């Protein structure tokens, strides 16, 4: 298979991409779709910074071949807020001091979204397990866990995911 024009749906919008078989999804998102919110921390699937949601499930976009997610719904960090209205998870991260350098933040927030959709009232242990694939070097995770639990409460009370 040589270069092909393929259709992707990212954050609800259609994109036509010139796709090569060996392209990782992160390359398509950052270089062709032009959404640079998804970060590359290692390129080997160890840090979780490249996490995006595909049909609601967190995947590592640096290890996922773009060709395998052509027909699916891809959500990146740029698709979370509604216009200028931040998502409760974003607000909780901001207000609880869970963001420092911000490089792990997009991956952390999307993993959190997937967790809270599946488990709206997680225990601390469930949060730690769910985030265990997202490394953070700045914050030591303490405030990230606080933010996730706070977001869970906001969402349960507001009924909004």
């Amino acid at each position, binding site marked *: 298979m040589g270069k092909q024009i393929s259709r992707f749906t990212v954050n609800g919008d259609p994109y036509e991409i010139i796709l090569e078989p060996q392209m990782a999804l992160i390359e398509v998102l950052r270089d062709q779709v032009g*959404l640079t919110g998804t970060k590359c*921390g290692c390129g080997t699937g*160890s840090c979780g910074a490249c996490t995006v949601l595909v049909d609601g499930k967190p995947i590592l976009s640096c290890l996922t071949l773009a060709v395998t997610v052509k027909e699916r719904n891809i959500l990146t960090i740029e698709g979370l807020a509604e216009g200028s209205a931040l998502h409760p998870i974003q607000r909780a991260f901001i207000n609880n001091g869970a963001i420092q*350098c*911000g490089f792990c933040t997009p991956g952390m927030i999307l993993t959190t979204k997937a967790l809270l959709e599946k488990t709206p009232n997680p225990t601390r242990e469930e949060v730690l*397990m769910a985030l265990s694939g997202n490394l953070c070097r700045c914050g030591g995770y303490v*405030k990230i866990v606080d933010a996730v639990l706070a977001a869970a409460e906001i969402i349960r009370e507001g009924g909004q995911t």
Partner: protein
Amino acid sequence: MSQEFSFVGKRIPPPDRAEKATGSAVYGADIKLPGMLVGKVLRSPHPHAKIMRIDTSKAENLPGVKAIITKDDVPKKAFNVTILPHYMLPPELRGDPLDQYVLNDKVRFIGDAVAAVAATNESIADKALELLDVEYEELPAVFDPIEAMKPDAPKIHDFSEDNVSVHLSFPFPTGDVEKGFQEADSIVDATFRAMNQDHCPLEPTVCVASFDTDGRLTVWSPCQIIHPAKKVIAYIFDIPEGKIRWLTPHIGGAFGAKQSLTAEPICIALARKAGKPVKLESTRAEELTAFESRERVIQNGKLGVKNDGTITALQTKVIADAGGYLTHSSVTTFINMRGFLHGAYRCPNTAAEADVVYTNTPIAGGMRGYGDSGGVFTMGQLIDMAAEKVGMDTVEFVLKNIKRAGDPSLVPFLTLEDSGLEDCIKLGAEKIGWKGKKAKKKEGVKRRGIGMACGAHNTTAYPVAVEHSSATIKLNPDGSANLVVGSCEMGQGILGSLVQIAAEGLGINAGDIHVIAGDTDITQFDAGSHASRSLYVMGNAVLEAAREAKGQLLERAGKTLGVPVEELDVKESRIYVKSAPEKGLPVAEVAQNAIYNFEGESLNISGRSSLEAKQLSPSFIAIFAEIEVDTETGKLKVLRIVIAADVGRAINPMTVEGQLEGAAIQGLGYALTEDFAFDKNTGVPISDSLESYKIPSTLDLPNIEVILVDRPVPSGPFGAKGAGEIGLVCVAPAIANAIYDAMGIRVKELPMMPERII
């Protein structure tokens, strides 16, 4: 403290957090410029070799390759990537060898740069690297500093016969250390080893460089100290400093990694040759092995103590392994010795020596804690050992010996302005339940233990280095303000804290202050964000600038209201008469009327300050750790860490906690899991990925509690001191002491992996 503040002391999210939460924050790797090329670096597979010949012809003929550089294409200007030794130290302290070039004639560690290419896309750049034909003359290599100092060891740098880059005799010894040991009733003497730690920020090293048609260079690089960095680049490349603009995109973590030049020299050389912008991104493997990490040390410490628990003498001998080039290692070793002798404890007789040694291993230099890491690991356990020798509880022993306000400071000819360390120790001990847990009998296969360590760390690099910071603030016609500072935000929240200080000092709402940083064209000089200095020094500059602007504001308002200036104040964007607060004016009205002025008195109300630190007001910390260790496997779980810190007044307690918690988890990694390994026989890095270099994840998170001892210091802005580094280095000795408490085994090598415990 009873003082009422509107913004200082509040948990306000810093201004850049929203763009980070939405993915719109631009980091170096996100930058796209028209015509931008992709740069790649060819790195040495050999630990020690001469570069005899590089044939670039095949690579040059590959379509899409726009520039190739080798050692023949780069300036013959020797430097140290550590920006500090250039200009930032006084002339009498600049004796360290400048032992690096942009590309060297020899390679001195696996990963040392050999050549670089710039091409129109990444796959062409990769192919071009493969087409470079390099002829090496392999040389014998040495990977251990003690071996490297032997007479028959291979010579790594021509100017250094015995591979000792720098020999240091600590310049501020006190008393008579030999006499001090004679006065002691017991002496504790032990040697400890600490391996490197890599900063491992989540953002790999990156740089974008572009020369415009006038020869003006713009550098986008997530550097911590952009003004001094610009000066070193100007020196290396012979470009007038005024023709260089350094911009920082958002910084994806630094911890000292970005306090040195990293990708910039090669990126700039490629951009100059290609005549096009070049982006040079590092892989994670390069970030781990090709750039600095924390220095390795073999450290002997000796402590003399009387039977009543008084310390009579302290001495340390350090062998620091710099790797292939010196970088930060001599400065960090100086700080190591300083902290060991003059950090937390009173002692009248002190001395130290060190050798900073070259080996053919990855370069080692400065990381958060900056030299204190090896020294505090050593001291923290010597204290525990000495307490046991004289039959005292460690906390009791520590309280007997710690420095207090009025004692000599980190540098002995300066005086300690204040110390809250006693409070830190007492509150921390109470929180973790020290007495009861220490007294418990330790038995069984799985045992719990408790340990503590405490220390001091500098706020600023005073009096050793340039400590100059400048700030400007201007009022806009709507009463908002623009604050311009050279400090570098790398996640620590400095810009938000400076806004809070400006808001409090000027009297307008923090939400109405827009902060601008990260541009050397616009910001006045700042020595940068390192040495835990920004909040203290730039904070004072911001406060002084804010007060100048406030003075102009009140003068104008006084004229309008017909009231003397002394009777006015301003709070939350409103100027009011102190004795009759209902009488006043909005700041916006005064600011606008000064700009759009029809009385012949136009003025853009503003303030400016350019000052330096005049004090060294160290911060203090006590760390208590509770662990559970399996005595059969050596597997260790940290259950609880209590952090009790004196950082003066916390301008923003939320970001201060974030710094302390984050540093403590890095300390946990340093203590237990971050084994920066390379093959002892071949020098091949083993830790070249996040699979093999294990930084803590959520699964490693113990229960962490932070106690902030609120002790504002007179010299700090609203009483603040530095908080960026202090949280890291005491964790390892606290855990080591807890292991000893649980098992009676003293672990003297970092990281404390299971096989080193049992």
